[in-house]
């Protein structure tokens, strides 16, 4: 379960109960206790205050969610010690207002008048002060809990570039955003989603840059969510994506603040979910899943090359086993003779057809990978030894698979790790099996047929109204500068056309120029 740290106030939504608070403190507390079932983490401190001790006051908070020092120093100390000399009950029953206005030293105080709000505040880490005879209670922001600090993200690591990653705490994450974009147009709006969990979900975008229709659509889809709990941004992603039945992700997610900030600057909309270090970014396009953060921190020519390698790896990961199957089963004449001879020599002792062989190896590899991901780290090395030695070498030596197939499978495996986005790599893994079946039944024609259907499917996808394959289809010349290629930074002067409909221009692009020769000469002369 996620751990938490200090965050600012959000007004919790009235949901649980709209019962008004009663005048009698004891009744209120009794009801409060009963509803919570005497939960042990709730602290209820009941005491007398004022000069004569006639004022009945209760302080309620959840232990572990509050900063106990603050509660002691600024709430309990104030009420029990510092206002001891004030004649509270003598002033015409305005105690509540007086305490709130003159005594409480907390930074952020909210009035509460219903039971529902009372629960919301207490359970989200506020300290509530209730006075006998008052139908209002005050909630003081004392939220502070154990949390993971800002660490290097475990996914999408870079060689060069910022190493901060999002954490599980919403406020830390929004702060990371603010630190990168100090523009007054960076709007952050939060609303709780989930009937039971009441998870805060923040929508972050650059007002005036993000397409208003998309912003509205995001709010609309978030409003439509009707679920009892949101435990990770994956929940939100699944509930707001355009198409459920597609192997491709239409929502981008990242642990890196710089990636998300770059997306926001392009006019995209980020969705931060409390309790998840993975921030969502919409609209997400096909090309986005091939853009790594580092592309923008390295030289343009190098980044372009690397991007092309990624696309190549995408096709390799998807098609290598199926092409191997098709070639060895149906189109042997296409393999150069010398290679064919050595291939058939290897395959001589193998009892299975190429398809079964490939399926066997691919499934084995998927099992290995899954085991490697879930196992404790210490066992991981054992798994890799088993995988490499036993399943690779020994399987070949035992004549179960040919060594060419081992090469094919390892090539596929390595290629599938190249994609900077893990969620995209999953879709390639799934499609691979479909292509293998097509290749086994129809050969290369099957693969081509599969590619046609796949492209049709991809062309039909949209992410929040933006065609998934743009800027390739529909082809947009201006956006080619940051799709497969990555142009020099001073040429990246416009935002993607379909994502940000307004304020297309980003900056005045001018190529860096060395100082002019003649001037340099002049300077020398002057010297």
């Amino acid at each position, binding site marked *: 379960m996620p751990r938490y740290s200090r965050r600012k106030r959000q007004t919790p939504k009235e949901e649980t109960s709209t019962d008004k608070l009663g005048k009698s403190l004891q009744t209120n507390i009794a009801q409060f206790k009963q509803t919570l079932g005497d939960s042990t983490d709730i602290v209820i401190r009941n005491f007398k205050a004022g000069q004569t001790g006639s004022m009945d006051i209760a302080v309620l908070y959840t232990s572990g969610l509050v900063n106990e020092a603050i509660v002691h120093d600024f709430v309990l100390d104030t009420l029990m010690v510092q206002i001891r000399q004030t004649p509270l009950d003598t002033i015409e029953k305005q105690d509540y207002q007086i305490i709130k206005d003159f005594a409480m030293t907390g930074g952020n105080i909210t009035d509460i008048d219903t039971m529902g709000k009372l629960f919301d505040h207490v359970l989200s880490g506020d300290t509530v002060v209730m006075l006998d005879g008052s139908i209002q209670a005050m909630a003081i922001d004392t939220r502070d809990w154990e949390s993971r600090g800002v660490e290097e993200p475990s996914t999408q690591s870079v060689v060069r570039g910022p190493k901060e990653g999002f954490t599980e705490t919403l406020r830390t994450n929004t702060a990371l955003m603010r630190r990168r974009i100090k523009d007054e147009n960076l709007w952050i709006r939060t609303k709780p989603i989930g009937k039971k969990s009441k998870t805060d979900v923040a929508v972050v975008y650059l007002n005036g840059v993000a397409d208003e229709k998309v912003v509205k659509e995001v709010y609309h889809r978030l409003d439509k969510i009707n679920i009892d709990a949101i435990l990770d941004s994956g929940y939100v992603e699944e509930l707001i994506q355009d198409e459920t039945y597609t192997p491709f992700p239409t929502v981008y997610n990242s642990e890196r603040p710089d990636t998300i900030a770059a997306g926001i600057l392009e006019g995209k909309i980020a969705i931060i979910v409390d309790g998840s270090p993975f921030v969502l970014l919409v609209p997400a396009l096909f090309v986005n899943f091939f853009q790594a953060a580092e592309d923008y921190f390295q030289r343009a020519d190098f980044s372009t090359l690397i991007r092309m390698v990624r696309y190549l790896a995408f096709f390799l990961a998807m098609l290598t086993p199926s092409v191997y199957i098709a070639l060895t089963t149906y189109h042997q004449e296409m393999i150069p003779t010398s290679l064919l001879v050595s291939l058939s020599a290897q395959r001589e002792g193998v009892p299975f057809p190429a398809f079964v062989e490939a399926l066997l190896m691919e499934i084995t590899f998927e099992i290995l990978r899954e085991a490697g991901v879930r196992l404790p780290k210490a066992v991981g090395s054992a798994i890799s030894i088993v995988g490499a030695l036993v399943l690779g070498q020994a399987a070949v030596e035992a004549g179960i698979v040919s060594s060419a197939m081992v090469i094919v499978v390892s090539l596929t495996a390595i290629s599938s790790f190249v994609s900077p986005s893990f969620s995209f790599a999953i879709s390639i893994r799934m499609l691979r099996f479909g292509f293998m079946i097509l290749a086994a039944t*129809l050969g290369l024609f099957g693969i081509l*047929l599969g590619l046609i259907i796949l492209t049709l499917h991809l062309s039909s996808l949209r992410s929040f109204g933006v065609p998934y394959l743009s800027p*390739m289809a529909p082809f947009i010349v201006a956006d080619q500068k940051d799709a497969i290629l990555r142009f020099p930074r001073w040429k990246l002067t416009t935002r993607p056309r379909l994502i940000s409909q307004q304020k297309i221009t980003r900056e005045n692009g001018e190529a860096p120029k060395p100082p002019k020769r003649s001037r340099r000469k002049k300077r020398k002369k002057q010297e």
Partner: protein
Amino acid sequence: MELNEKVTLRQFNLLMILFIIGTSILLSPASLANYAGNDAWLSAILSVGIGMIIVIFFWMISRQFPGSNLVDVSEQVLGKWIGKAVSLMFVGFSLLSASTVLWVIGNFLVTQIMPATPMLFLHFLLMLAVVYGVLLGIEVICRTVEIFFPYIVTLLMIIFFFSIPSVQIDRIRPWLDSGFKPVLEGALFDVSVSMLPLIVLFMVYPKLVTDKNRALPKVLTSYLIAGTFIIAITFITTTVLGVKITANQAYPTYVVAKSLNIEGLIQRAEVVIAVSWILTIFFKLSLYFYASVTVLAQTLNLKTYRTITVPMGMLTIALSVIVYPSTTYANEWNETTWLWFALTFGIAYPLLLSLIAMLRGVKGRSHP
């Protein structure tokens, strides 16, 4: 009818290019060499010239009836019932074209690539992709065209480029030794195969293409690109293989690609031509099929064409297995009847519509 689909002029042009070179790239050289002998390439140039006039003619028709597609025009000009009857005949035309195209590609696959597979099965699989594409809509098909177009062009360019060393001009000399008539005959046949069917684009262009200002030069340019492909492929096949072999082969381009062998660099290039051809013909088939489905749906005033797409696909498969009993029959029919069939719907039909409209003073709906 769904009208919220949008096609950009660029997408439309790419679709047109693929539609023109669709079947021609593999079949035209043989028939042209058959008709015109040494002058096959002249015939191709002539056909592109004639085709240009046809494209301009089509453009004028589309200007005459802005914003109305073929079915609208027929009903406006010929009245409700005659218009509907003619539209149904047009459904027959495009459906039969779709089935013949399906047969052609099935025949190619069965004879050249996968002899063991039953033809019906292949037709079914291909139609599955086509029906899926049409169900997703013409906009999606056009986007797919945009994705595949660079690959198709690159693949064809590879073939062109690497066959240049084997080109021998002597093989097509002397020029015009049997007069001009065969050249014209070949050209007319090629026009009927490649350009006249462009009439089905009338189901796409008037209503769905969004940016039509100064469309003609762009459309003509892309038409010429397609024409260049046909001329180039005819020239290359006849000069590399010789006229006789080209005329006798069912798929001369495929044979050229097979004969390419630049040691260590390119070998077995016929896969390249097969891939690009399957792709182009897929789009040609999709367009024919899309036209037949939408014309039928619009004629019968169906709310959406999507409901009848699947059974129409089934019908196309059914027709494709009976239309051509054999290759000989196919060649004979194409040479004797196809020209007239295509002329009727490709030229006579729009021309008549245009003339009657002028006489009756009917104008197309104003542009939405």
